[in-house]
């Protein structure tokens, strides 16, 4: 395992102005290494989700610096950020956000078709591989809306993996899942981090999930209060 830094946050601050000015993130600096499985924990209102969306590049309204894969992300234009997310970041949310009219396979293929690094045939093969990885190869041609909640979430994870992103970000990825499906998701993440050297950053309320991860970043009132590293 290399120890390259994949994501670096320097002095990140963010304010909410509605209903009144409120400092939601206060001077946050930390870095995440390649192949690390980090979880962000904290009570609700601690700013962990807000921080995740800044790290995801989708929220650009903050002070400080964000460097992903050696590239200064802060200050880039929306279209450049979109291209960067497409190639380097995969997302898993609490809700699956699959496109209901498309089959599972098509849903997984969409980010890769957008990126266009492979031919359609190759993308389809890769999408099958990801489905297999998550044990869903039998569901490939079903419409996304026909699957159970746990299956849908696994399809969403497969979609996040299709472009082999450097970082996979999760916002409560197991929030809606039963323990069996949660375990599948955790094992998948762990395998990705440890075997494929991909980085995982996930916000979670689930203490078991957090405790099993490599590193827990605990937040309170917009600050990191504990940056526990197990290994």
């Amino acid at each position: 395992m290399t120890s390259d830094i994949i994501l670096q946050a320097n002095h990140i601050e963010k304010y909410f102005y509605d209903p009144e000015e409120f400092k939601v993130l206060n001077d946050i600096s930390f870095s995440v290494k390649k192949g690390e499985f980090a979880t962000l924990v904290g009570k609700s209102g601690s700013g962990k989700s807000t921080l995740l969306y800044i790290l995801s590049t989708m929220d650009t309204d903050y002070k400080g610096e964000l460097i992903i894969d050696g590239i200064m992300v802060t200050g880039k234009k929306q279209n450049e950020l979109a291209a960067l997310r497409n190639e380097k970041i995969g997302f898993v949310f609490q809700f699956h956000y699959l496109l209901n009219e498309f089959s599972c396979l098509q849903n997984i293929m969409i980010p890769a078709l957008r990126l266009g690094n492979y031919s359609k045939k190759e993308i389809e093969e890769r999408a099958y591989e990801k489905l297999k990885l998550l044990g869903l190869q039998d569901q490939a041609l079903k419409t996304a809306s026909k699957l159970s909640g746990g299956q849908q979430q696994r399809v969403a994870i497969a979609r996040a993996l299709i472009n082999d992103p450097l970082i996979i970000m999760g916002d409560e990825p197991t929030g809606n899942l039963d323990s069996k499906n949660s375990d599948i998701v955790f094992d998948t993440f762990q395998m990705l981090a440890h075997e494929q050297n991909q980085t995982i950053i996930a916000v979670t309320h689930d203490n078991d999930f957090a405790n099993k991860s490599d590193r827990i970043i605990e937040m309170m009132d917009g600050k990191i209060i504990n940056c526990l590293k197990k290994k």
Partner: protein
Amino acid sequence: MKTHYNHNIDTNISITYVVANKKITLVAALGVTIGISIFIFMNSLGSGFVKKSNKTIFNNTPHIRVYKDDEISKSIITPKDSNSLVLISNPTVIPKSEQIVNPERIITLLRAQPEVTYVTPEIAVKVFYNSGMSQVSGDASGLEIAEASKMFNIKPSMIQGRMEDIETHSNGILLGVGIASKINAKTGDNISITSSKNITKVMKVVGIFKTNSSIVDKTKSYIGINAAQQLLGENANYITNIDVNVQDFNKAADYSAKFSALTNYKAEDWKAANSDQLNGFKMRGIIIFAMSLSILLVAGFGTYNILNMTITHRINDIAILKAMGFKGWDVIKIFVLQGTLIGLMGIAVGLLIGGVMVYFASKIYMGPDQGYFPIVLDYMVFINASLFGLVVCFFASYLPARKAANVDPVSILRK
């Protein structure tokens, strides 16, 4: 450098959306279809009116009329040297003859022009048609009937007698049906007419014609050129007008300027001669176009609403696509394409329905006076309908799509 594939994923998503929501697609397309078919029907009706009106005008008016214009005398004549006096007079029409000098030369000259189809000399005479003590005023046209018939469609309008007889009878006259009924004349009768030069002549009615303009039928008659010259007491060279038809009557105004310069006489095109009537037609055309365009716009609003609804419905899809790296432009493309596809379907069906409606309407026979329903299949109307339809659908989808492109994914995904 890695090879880059363009998988047209935006198009793919658009088409899936169009197919997935068949009901919404059909309702939106139906709106466009109705708009397009009404646009086509109304504008074809407009073209039909124009065609019919032009036909009525050309029954009486040549494309270009060459005649001698009135000249006004100068009000001040300044002396050449200081010994003479300045002459001041009231400006009046110079009392000159209306004759065109050497008409044969001018007719030959005009016939030699490539754009000219027919040229015929004419003598316009103001006359009274006498019937006992009563008189009906009107205009007699002295002309060479064979050539003039090609220009004014005289022969098809005959309802009694034979047009050609005017050539064999030196005193033959063709009467408008309105005059004939007022003075109670029929073919074979002798009537007397009096000209503005107070010369009275007995003429033999050789035929009666009926146009679809009652004002023409009540005033117009055709006589031979010689008879007209006699009525005015003029010699055999006397000609007042030369009527010219050209290949494309829409360009008559351009040609008239050219013919004026060529002949040194005033050449007036049919549009100038009928400007009051044509202004009315123009207004009618504008009203028809504005109304049909409004209907198309309403159809556009239908599409706009439905696309707005679709976008609200798909706000989650938009958010996740943006999170996964779709740019604002991609989102715009997805929804504009969806709107345009709906528009194309609506336009295609609308063109068909509009065409069928126009076809059947043009087969409706409205009686001997009006003939067929005045509607024509004009390909320009179809091209315009498609273009306006596409533009309307484009904007109807672009505006909601731009809104979708500005969706902030964080506010949707973060629940």
